[in-house]
């Protein structure tokens, strides 16, 4: 057996094995090396899988049989184009954030907990990758819980005591969400007698007029929406992002909610099929209005936040609105916008939270509790940290959707999808909601560039070990705004495959 055939198993196994190894080593520096190496190896694996999927016919997928048990009896790992794309995002972000972690975690997490931080990070990564790669419904639930439990611990590692309540709140909400997901999967299992997603999709055709199938759809939608922080279910997110250590915030903002979006797309398009999701229930309409409420409500709320991390946390809720808006169209262009935005927003928000981590690090003295990055502490910051501020502004432009940045590509496809359906008012709404993003990014610009710095402050740029990974993402944001062949190409292919499955 060649190594290339085992890549799907390695994708999850590498970070999963790194976690207990690190706990046994009990050494912060070694732990960092091991987990960072595992994350880069996972990224290499994802790249390998990407190349393998690229060689298949359109619509093809790599099927890996765990323990050589043939599906639908055994657990199948299934990598199609969409899965491969999300694997690249998740493992790539993990590799960048872990390279950044050493310098950031040193200042924000007590020394004796470092090895546990890395162990939890590895577990979280293994869980997220597992959710994406598995082709088994119950397996999805187990991996969701692996990543979620690790996430709760990572958030609780924040030095502020409010990190504890944020983690607790997330634990309650996240567990309710996961329980709803498992109820939905249970109903599907009762109706079809299988847990393999591909097999389930086929068998579901025979029973799709029965009510339990709709109940399953409802439970799954609510459960996954809790996980991806769809507007009225987003209450756990702002506190969790605000009080978690900076590196954790960056990783979660870039990956955790995005993987939940992936699960939603997977269930909607691959399992239930469009006719069931979009015709039998008023789901597209509900999705449309909730997305609009997120785009306007959360972005509007973001403008008035005093803490920079909290501001961009609310902005995340708003940006998730754009992703779900794309889903509600039920068209290739809409789905393309969702998939592209999942990537584009991931790297832009990851860059912003990494740079904010740099600001927090520069304000922190050794072994003290890191101060919150509130606006009164940021006056004249551009003088002290020019590179950091410039990076936040560039990534902020992507959140707004200025042409030349990655965010513009998404908005372009969203507007195309809206025009396709003749919903011109929606085009106006998308543009109008972008103005709210201008407002909250401008608040940062105004304070950092135009307010006078406190007297006696000198240049205090973040260390290079923090700046390089963050700027890597900023440059990626610009790169994918200009050269869209990778992101849009992948998303378009994936969207066409998914929409075609049921046509």
């Amino acid at each position: 057996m060649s190594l290339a055939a085992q890549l799907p198993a390695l994708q999850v196994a590498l970070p999963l094995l790194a976690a207990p190894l690190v706990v046994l080593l009990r050494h912060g520096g070694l732990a960092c090396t091991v987990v960072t190496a595992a994350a880069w190896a996972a990224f290499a694996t994802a790249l390998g899988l990407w190349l393998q999927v690229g060689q298949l016919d359109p619509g093809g997928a790599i099927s890996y049989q765990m323990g050589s048990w043939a599906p639908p009896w055994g657990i199948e790992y299934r990598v199609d184009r969409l899965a491969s794309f999300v694997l690249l995002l998740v493992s790539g972000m993990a590799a960048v954030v872990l390279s950044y972690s050493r310098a950031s975690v040193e200042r924000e997490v007590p020394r004796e907990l470092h090895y546990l931080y890395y162990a939890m990070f590895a577990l979280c990564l293994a869980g997220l990758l597992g959710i994406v790669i598995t082709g088994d419904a119950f397996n999805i639930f187990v991996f969701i819980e692996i990543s979620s439990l690790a996430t709760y611990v990572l958030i609780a590692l924040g030095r502020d005591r409010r990190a504890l309540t944020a983690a607790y709140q997330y634990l309650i909400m996240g567990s309710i969400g996961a329980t709803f997901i498992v109820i939905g999967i249970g109903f599907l299992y009762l109706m079809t007698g299988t847990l393999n997603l591909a097999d389930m999709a086929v068998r579901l055709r025979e029973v799709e007029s029965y009510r339990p199938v709709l109940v399953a759809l409802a439970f799954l939608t609510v459960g996954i929406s809790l996980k991806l922080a769809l507007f009225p279910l987003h209450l756990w997110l702002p506190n969790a992002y605000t009080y978690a250590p900076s590196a954790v915030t960056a990783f979660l903002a870039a990956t955790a909610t995005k993987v939940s979006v992936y699960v939603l797309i997977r269930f909607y398009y691959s399992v239930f099929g469009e006719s069931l999701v979009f015709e039998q229930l008023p789901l597209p309409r509900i999705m449309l209005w909730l997305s609009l409420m997120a785009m306007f409500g959360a972005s509007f709320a973001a403008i008035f936040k005093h803490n920079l991390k909290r501001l961009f946390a609310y902005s995340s809720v708003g940006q998730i609105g754009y992703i779900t808006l794309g889903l509600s169209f039920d068209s290739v262009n809409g789905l393309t916008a969702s998939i592209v935005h999942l990537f584009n927003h991931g790297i832009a928000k990851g860059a912003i939270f990494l740079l904010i981590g740099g600001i927090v690090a520069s304000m922190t003295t050794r072994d003290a509790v890191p101060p919150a990055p509130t606006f009164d502490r940021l006056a004249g910051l551009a003088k002290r940290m020019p590179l950091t501020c410039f990076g936040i502004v560039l990534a902020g432009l992507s959140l707004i959707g200025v042409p030349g940045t990655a965010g513009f590509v998404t908005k372009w496809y969203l507007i195309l999808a809206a025009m396709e359906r003749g919903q011109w008012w929606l085009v106006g709404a998308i543009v109008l909601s972008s103005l709210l993003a201008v407002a909250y990014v401008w608040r940062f610009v105004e304070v950092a560039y135009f307010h006078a710095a406190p007297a006696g402050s000198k240049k205090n740029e973040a260390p290079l070990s923090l700046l390089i990974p963050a700027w890597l993402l900023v440059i990626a944001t610009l790169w994918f705004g200009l050269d869209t062949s990778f992101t849009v190409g992948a998303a378009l292919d994936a969207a066409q495959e998914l929409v075609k499955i049921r046509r």
Partner: protein
Amino acid sequence: MSTLAGYFSYAVTIFLLVAGLYIIIAQGNLIKKLVGLSLLQTSVYLLYIAPGKLVGGTAPIIAPGQQIYANPLPHVLILTAIVVGVATLALGLALAVRIHEAYGSIEEEEILEKDNASEDAEGVRA
């Protein structure tokens, strides 16, 4: 079998599910919320396991003279779910202990009051 008795396990499942959710929402005590969460998760165990039992079925080991076997898969799945539930409960309790150390209380309202007080002291507006 009469319909009422046929639906008995579902009725219990739904009761536990709603009771669990109600406790989570209505109770301000962090430990009681975890009790509700456990109840909610337990209802799912029942949802999976009850349909796995067939009337007159035997344990799923092939034996001569047996035609009907119970479905073993739900039990296996729920074993996993129980492990997940235990881990969630343990982590939730650990967080409750840490919160008690940091705030001196496990009542949601008191914790919120202390948070608001400390934010006012910092001069931080929401």
